[in-house]
């Protein structure tokens, strides 16, 4: 029986968005007194030797490191990313100046006249060059931003007694977010306060990152989120990077300035998904059973650390995937290279990790001559099983039921048999899971989310928190949760757009935590308000985060305990046909079955599922992003292909309910998990179609041609 909370309602923002009355940042300030344009470094690595700036006409400014009142560092997780490059340059595209003025043409002209002499160094492009400390170290002692080592059970011994050891390395590439609304900010100064409007996921992150550079109290820095036209992680930390130079300029000039990136600079210089190289070594006994995995997981972090440490943590805690393997060792490292920094992107390290493990399971099955679906079954996690961090799976794991459903929907088994003898066709299945919320003790010790609920005399209820609507539907789902808990119509409940001056810090809009973690606070607050409800009176409730009591305590030193309070689970099947002449892959069928606790709105969740799948299929083979000579070769929307309505057939999906005690009406995270499974299922399908193991995404026609020519 589906839960009544899952029954769909019309999204609160749908009509305004469709009719074009919703005002995004550039619509709110279509004409601005002043515009800013970033001046970017034109080399990947080196030092700035000298600078020659043009004569400035009246009303024009070039703002740089010398104008910083505070410290030239943005505060993210560590403080390595400067607001403006002053001596050292670490990637092509690093901001050196902000050119400001009223007329765009004049700004561009001034831009052209800036001359910088660099002393160039050979950039580290590959992980190997970074490891070899080419031209000297750039971060710490070994160019490693963060290293996490975990293990569970024994590792040396199973490899010593193994009957057979199989190993392989898997690669994933960069990915560009391509949120439809480019990065946009508008800032001004009012009395003694700096005010920034931004298309962003985490208003409080921006505020925190600016304290250093402005040398101001955080109370005097106000961030107002504007309707956000897509983000997918691309507006988690990157708005900080633009807000820094803009804030320095506004503090100096004291006039309103608008900074909207055009698509080309957005694509060329913004952050990307971390590329990965994941090596898995597996010890097998004489019956082909897995004794142990030994995993070396490397991420390319680009030039600055940003939030790489946290992406790495998720990759490391997820790479074991949905399998209970008695012995597993994982070494994870993220390296500094001279590329635009890698950062958050839907899935946050999990898609890379899961692609590697699922492809590896296929590789093992292939090498052992066992059916890949049957090969996986004995290892599927069950309630009570240990995790790779010596935590525990607390919920009932619905994978058997989900497997049954997806096999039925997709006709996998028959097709898998048929395609053994039908060349160029293939079908592939993947399992995956995704932890809800922040890793480890993040929610309890770092985020400490808080929510306000306020009711006015007209009995209208307002939800105050810092989680933003960026397309995922939270302005509706939060209201649904509150209205259901209060037992009042949804029209009586309103979502307040985040503004650091008026909302409490309920944490960033990331990690699939909004509904599962913060939504639960909304529900609790609403329950309390209902108990105290006095019609016709102003009332307000403050609700703080309370850590669930069911967890195995997390130890950040040893990285043991429950890495997440709960997991969402999924199974995907993809069917493909490979064109034998062009080696282009056509996706013929897409199926997904998910368990995400309880979906708060069926239609909204289905939207997330379909959108996530298609984005992930783009990642699997359309979205080629090659890096050469300091830049990405596909830096415009005509070169970098994201899926169109013609690229994929209709997605078929199904949802299995499994209420989670500590989530809003039983909800767990949904928005990221739906990205995790498509690439490995796609890889498996192509593997069958070309009869070889795919170990890399994106799967490009040229790679397939090589693979089949070599007859590997």
């Amino acid at each position: 029986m589906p839960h009544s909370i899952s029954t769909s309602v019309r999204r609160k923002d749908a009509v305004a968005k469709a009719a074009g009355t919703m005002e995004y940042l550039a619509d709110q300030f279509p004409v601005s007194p002043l515009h800013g344009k970033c001046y970017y470094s034109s080399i990947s690595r080196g030092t700035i030797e000298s600078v020659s700036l043009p004569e400035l006409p009246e009303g024009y400014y070039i703002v740089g490191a010398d104008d910083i009142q505070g410290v030239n560092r943005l505060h993210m997780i560590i403080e390595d990313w400067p607001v403006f490059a002053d001596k050292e340059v670490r990637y092509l595209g690093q901001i050196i100046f902000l050119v400001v003025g009223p007329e765009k043409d004049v700004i561009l002209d001034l831009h052209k006249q800036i001359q910088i002499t660099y002393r160039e160094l050979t950039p580290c492009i590959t992980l190997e060059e970074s490891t070899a400390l080419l031209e000297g170290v750039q971060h710490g002692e070994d160019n490693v931003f963060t290293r996490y080592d975990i293990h569970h059970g024994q590792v040396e011994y199973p490899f010593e007694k193994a009957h057979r050891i199989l190993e392989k390395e898997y690669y994933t590439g960069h990915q560009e977010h391509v949120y439809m609304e480019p990065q946009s900010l508008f800032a001004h100064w009012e009395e003694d306060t700096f005010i920034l409007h931004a298309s962003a996921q985490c208003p409080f992150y921006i505020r925190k990152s600016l304290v250093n550079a402005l040398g101001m109290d955080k109370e005097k820095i106000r961030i107002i989120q504007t309707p956000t036209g897509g983000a997918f992680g691309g507006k988690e930390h990157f708005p900080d990077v633009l807000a820094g130079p803009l804030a320095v300029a506004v503090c100096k000039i004291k006039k309103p300035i608008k900074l909207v990136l055009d698509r080309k600079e957005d694509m060329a210089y913004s952050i990307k998904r971390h590329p990965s190289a994941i090596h898995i070594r597996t010890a097998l006994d004489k019956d082909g059973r897995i004794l142990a995995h030994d995993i070396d997981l490397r991420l390319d972090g680009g030039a600055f650390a940003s939030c790489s440490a946290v992406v790495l943590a998720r990759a490391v805690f997820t790479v074991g995937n949905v399998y209970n393997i008695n012995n597993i060792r994982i070494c994870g490292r993220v390296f500094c290279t001279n590329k635009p920094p890698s950062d958050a992107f839907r899935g946050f390290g999990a898609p890379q990790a899961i692609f590697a493990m699922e492809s590896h399971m296929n590789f093992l099955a292939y090498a052992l001559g066992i059916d890949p679906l049957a090969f996986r079954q004995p290892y599927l996690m069950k309630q009570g099983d240990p995790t790779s961090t010596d935590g525990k799976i607390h919920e009932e794991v619905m994978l058997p039921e989900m497997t049954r459903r997806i096999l039925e929907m997709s006709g996998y088994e028959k097709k898998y048999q048929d395609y053994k003898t039908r060349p160029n066709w293939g079908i592939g299945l993947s399992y995956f899971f995704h932890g809800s919320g922040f890793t480890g003790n993040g929610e309890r010790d770092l985020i400490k989310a808080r929510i306000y609920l306020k009711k006015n005399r007209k009995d209208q209820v307002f939800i105050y928190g810092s989680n933003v609507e960026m397309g995922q539907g939270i302005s509706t789902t939060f209201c649904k949760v509150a209205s259901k808990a209060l037992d009042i119509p949804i029209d009586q409940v309103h979502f307040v757009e985040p503004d650091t001056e008026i909302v409490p810090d309920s944490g960033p809009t990331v990690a699939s935590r909004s509904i599962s973690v913060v939504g639960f606070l909304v529900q609790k607050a609403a329950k309390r308000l209902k108990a105290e409800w006095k019609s016709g009176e102003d009332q307000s409730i403050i609700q703080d985060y309370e850590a669930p009591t069911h967890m195995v305590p997390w130890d950040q030193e040893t990285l043991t305990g429950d890495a997440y309070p709960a997991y969402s689970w999924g199974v995907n099947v993809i069917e493909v046909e490979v064109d034998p002449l062009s080696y282009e892959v056509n996706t013929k069928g897409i199926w997904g079955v998910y368990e995400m606790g309880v979906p708060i709105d069926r239609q909204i969740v289905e939207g997330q599922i379909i959108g996530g799948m298609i984005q992930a299929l783009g990642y699997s083979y359309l979205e080629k992003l090659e890096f050469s000579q300091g830049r990405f070769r596909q830096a415009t929307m005509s070169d970098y292909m994201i899926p169109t309505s013609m690229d994929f057939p209709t997605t078929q999906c199904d949802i299995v309910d499994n209420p989670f005690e500590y989530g809003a009406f039983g909800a767990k995270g949904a928005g990221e998990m739906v990205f995790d499974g498509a690439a490995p299922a796609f890889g498996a399908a192509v593997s069958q179609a070309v009869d070889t193991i795919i170990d890399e995404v994106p799967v490009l026609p040229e790679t397939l041609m090589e693979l089949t020519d070599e007859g590997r």
Partner: protein
Amino acid sequence: MKDGKIRFTLNGRDVVYEDSPLRRLLDVLREDLGETGVKEGCGEGECGACSILLNGKLVNSCMIAMGTIHEKELMTIEGLRETEQGKCIIDAFADAGAVQCGFCIPGMVMAAQSVLQDAPRPSEEEIRKGISGNLCRCTGYDQIVQAVQMASEKGAGLW
């Protein structure tokens, strides 16, 4: 255009434009005429967020110079939303769950109008083709396709 003035109709009303003929139609719509429902997603004719109807045909306004629109008829989302057809499409988008971040959606609604103008009862194939010049990074398109189908059913006779 002899007097250097560019005259056109925008959503049925007459407009006279006297600035540079080289400016992009998109900028003039947004900055001079306040039509901010027309979005800029790429500025290079790839994404369709700036879609409008020019003499009834779907075009990207970022690729059009003011000098080329003399005596033409323009319709933007601001105009379409006032019509029965526009209301029906917008309604269908909301009912189908076809709207997420919304940035591409005004352009999609314009594309939907163009599809329905050409084929009041379009097949899935025709819809997918008709909206293929409009990129959406959020929805994965299925619910948008559904919305166009719903509009065509509910609004039967409007096109």
